[in-house]
C-alpha cells in the first residue's frame, strides 16, 4: 500500500518539476512542451493509430529477437558449460565481443543485410544473447555437486542429467539473466529502430524530430519507458516465482 502512495507521489513530483521548468525556463513552448501538451500529443498518436502501429512493430521485433537470444543463449550456454573444451575455446572471443555495444554493430549489419526488421532484431539478439549465454554457462559450472552425484548414483543418462538436473538446478541464475537481458534488449530495441527501420517506437522518435514535434517525441519516450517498466515488472514476478519455488525466499 505504501508503495502505491510513493509511486503516485514520485510521478506527481516529477510532473510538478517539469511544469515548473516549463513555466520558469525561457524555452520556446514548441520545443519544450508542458505535460498537458504531451498528453494532448499522446491522444493524437493514439487516435490516428500511429502509436498502435509503432508498438505492434516494435513488440514483434522485440519478441522475435528476445526469444532467439534466450533460446540460443540457454542452449549454447548449456553446451559450453558442460563441455569444458568448448568453454575454454570460446570464452576468450566471447569476452572480447561482449563489451562491444550492440548499436556499434548497426552500420555493419545495415551494410550487410540492409534496413528493415532484421537489423533491429539482430541488435536485440546481441543485447540479450551474451548475458544469457554466460550466465547459463556459469550456472552450469556452479551446480551443486551433490545433484551430479545423485544423477550418477541413480544411473541417469548424460542427456537427461543436462536437461533434467543441470538446467533446472541452474535455472534461478538463468532466470536472473533473462531479467537482465530483457531490460537491455528493450533499451537496444529503440536504438536499433532509430537507425535501421521505418517503423516502431524508435522510428517514431526520429520521425517526431524530423517533423519538429517534441510533444510527440516526449509522448513516445514515455510510452517506451512505460512498456519497459511493465516488461520488467512481469519478468521480475516470474523470477521471484522461480526463486520461491526453489526455496530461495
Amino acid at each position: 500500500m505504501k508503495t502505491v502512495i510513493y509511486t503516485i507521489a514520485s510521478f506527481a513530483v516529477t510532473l510538478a518539476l517539469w511544469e515548473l521548468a516549463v513555466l520558469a525556463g525561457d524555452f520556446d513552448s514548441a520545443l519544450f512542451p508542458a505535460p498537458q501538451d504531451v498528453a494532448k500529443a499522446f491522444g493524437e498518436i493514439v487516435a490516428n493509430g500511429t502509436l498502435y502501429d509503432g508498438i505492434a512493430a516494435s513488440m514483434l521485433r522485440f519478441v522475435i529477437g528476445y526469444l532467439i537470444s534466450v533460446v540460443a543463449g540457454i542452449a549454447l550456454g548449456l553446451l559450453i558449460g558442460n563441455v569444458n573444451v568448448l568453454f575454454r575455446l570460446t570464452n576468450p572471443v566471447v569476452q572480447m565481443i561482449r563489451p562491444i555495444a550492440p548499436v556499434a554493430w548497426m552500420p555493419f549489419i545495415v551494410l550487410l543485410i540492409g534496413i528493415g526488421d532484421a537489423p533491429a532484431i539482430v541488435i536485440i539478439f546481441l543485447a540479450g544473447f551474451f548475458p544469457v549465454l554466460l550466465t547459463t554457462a556459469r550456472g552450469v559450472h556452479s551446480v551443486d555437486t551433490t545433484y551430479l552425484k545423485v544423477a550418477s548414483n541413480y544411473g541417469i543418462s548424460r542427456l537427461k542429467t543436462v536437461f533434467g538436473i543441470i538446467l533446472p538446478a541452474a535455472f534461478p541464475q538463468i532466470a536472473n539473466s533473462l531479467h537482465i537481458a530483457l531490460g537491455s534488449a528493450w533499451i537496444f530495441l529503440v536504438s536499433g529502430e532509430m537507425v535501421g527501420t521505418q517503423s516502431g517506437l524508435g522510428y517514431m522518435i526520429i520521425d517526431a524530430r524530423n517533423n519538429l514535434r517534441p510533444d510527440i517525441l516526449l509522448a513516445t519516450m514515455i510510452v517506451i519507458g512505460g512498456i519497459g517498466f511493465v516488461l520488467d515488472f512481469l519478468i521480475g514476478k516470474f523470477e521471484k516465482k522461480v526463486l520461491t519455488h526453489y526455496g530461495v525466499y
Partner: protein
Amino acid sequence: MAYIEVRNVSKDFKRRNAEGKDSTIHVLDDISFEVEKGEFVCLLGFSGCGKSTLLNMLAGFEKPTKGTVSIDGEEVKKPSAKYITIFQHYGLLPWRNVKKNIELGLENKNISREEREQAAQKYLELVGLKGLEQQFPSQLSGGQQQRVAIARGLAVNPEILFMDEPFGALDPITRNKLQGDLLTIVKEQKKTVIFVTHDIEEAVYLADRVFVMQANPGKIQKIYEVKIQRPRDRNSNGFSMYRAAVYNKLFSIKEANIEYMI
C-alpha cells in the same frame, strides 16, 4: 569372500598450498576391512579424518589412489543404483515435489507410470510422510527432507545404503526419532548400511560395528563390535560403557577394557 571388501586402500589428493605450489596430501593410509551383508557399520572420527573420502570411494564417486574396493565380488569403478548414497544436505531436487523426488530413480527403469507411482507411495508411507506428496522440499523441515531422501533411495531397492552424516543437521529429538525409524527399516529390509558420523552416541546406538578412525593420515584405529540387543536403551549401563570406551579411544585416553567390564 566378504560382501564388501576394502583392500589396502590409500587416497592422496593434490592440493595447491599457500605459495601456489602443488602438494600431495595423504588422506587415507592403507585401509583394509570387510563388511558382511546386512551389517550396519558406523565410521566414526573427527572432522577431516577422511570419512567422506572413504565413503565416496565405496560408493564409486572417487577412485582409490592405491588398493581396491569390491562389493559382492566385483570391483567398484563407478556409482551404481545398487548402492545408494544419502547426503547430509539431502540432495533433493528443489524443483520437484516430494512424490517426484522419490520417483527420480525409478524414471529410467522399464516400469509403467502406475507402478512407479505405487512404489513412490509405498516408500513415502514407509518413511512416515503420507500426505506430503505434493509439497516441495523448501516446504519441509530438515528431518522430513531427509526422510524423502531415504524414501528416494529405498525406492530403487538398493542393497547398500551409504550415509554421510545424514542426521548431522537435525536437532537431537528429530535425530533420535530418525535413527530409530532408520534401524527399523533397514533391519526389516535387510540392507547393508555404512553410516558416517562424528556423534559417538549415534554410532553406538545404530551400529553392529563401530570403526573408529584417526586422522593424518586417516586410518581405522579400532573396531568395536557393539553387542547390545536392540532396541537399545541409551541410558543402560552397557550403552554407557561402549560410549565411554569409544570416547576414550577417540580422544586417545587410556583404553578401558570393555570386554572385561561387561
